[in-house]
């Protein structure tokens, strides 16, 4: 079907989700009471703001992930032709991985991959 299938799928997804939510909205009965809209935190009254400062570890992992993701993107064109190119491809990727491995070891040694 080609690229138009993306449009079909997006529309199908919206129609499916929208239809389900709409039907549910029509047939359900809504009630209101003052406690209903409060955050569900297992019955204990919520304390403080929700949008708090989170652990810096998440940020660090996201950063390291970004770097590896960029590396992975470069590997795709390489992987497609690697078999035809032969040993040159092998050599190229060994150097590529070798240099990256230094960074990986550095991050490992500095404890950046440690959850704290």
């Amino acid at each position, binding site marked *: 079907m080609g*690229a138009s299938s993306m449009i079909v799928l997006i529309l199908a997804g919206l129609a499916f989700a929208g239809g389900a939510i709409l039907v549910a909205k029509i047939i359900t009965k809504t009630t209101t009471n003052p406690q209903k809209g409060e955050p569900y935190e297992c019955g204990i009254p919520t304390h403080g703001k929700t*949008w*708090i*400062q*989170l*652990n*810096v*570890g*998440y*940020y*660090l992992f*996201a*950063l*390291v*992930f*970004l*770097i590896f*993701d*960029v*590396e992975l*993107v*470069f590997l*795709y*064109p*390489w*992987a*497609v*032709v*690697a078999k035809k*190119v032969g040993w*040159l*491809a092998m050599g*190229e990727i060994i*150097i*590529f991985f070798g*240099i*990256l491995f*230094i*960074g*990986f070891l*550095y*991050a490992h040694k*500095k*404890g*950046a991959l440690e959850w*704290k």
Partner: protein
Amino acid sequence: MIANLPNYIFFFLAFIAIFFAIMVITAKNPIHSCLYLVLTMFAIAANYVLLNAQFLAIVQMIVYAGAIMVLFLFTVMLLNLNADSEPVKSNLMKFAGVIVGGTLLLLFTAALRKSIGDAEPVMNSIPMQIPNHSNVGLIQNLGWVLFKDYVFPFEAISILILSAMIGAVVLGKKEKVQLSTND
């Protein structure tokens, strides 16, 4: 109309990209800004597909919409940027901002003028030529080019990534001392 279709799609996508780019800087909530940025990235990726550069489009999505947005969202959540915690900007900062923005605008205008001057014949031959038969953006060709002409830059990239990784680790370690943690 059919012949002009790529043109219409292009203008539609360009409109979306610019509209959401404006939304990024006008949105009050930083998280909303991030999500508008995702939409801008998508519109740009779709434009790449229109130019038959599928690999670039996919990379745009993997790296920007996937990885960088996650990083942005994490950062925004981490820094707890709220309207009330926004630092007050001094006049000097505003002045510097205007200068930097103006210079960037000047640069873009100059680049645009030059490219329009160079591309005069192309611009006149609307409807736009969509290079359907060219294989410029295809991944196989990209792979071959990577081996034929750009072996050294390919390796240089790994050093670039290495430096980025070391930078990330150093930055992350430094911040860890200053920020309190709670999860």
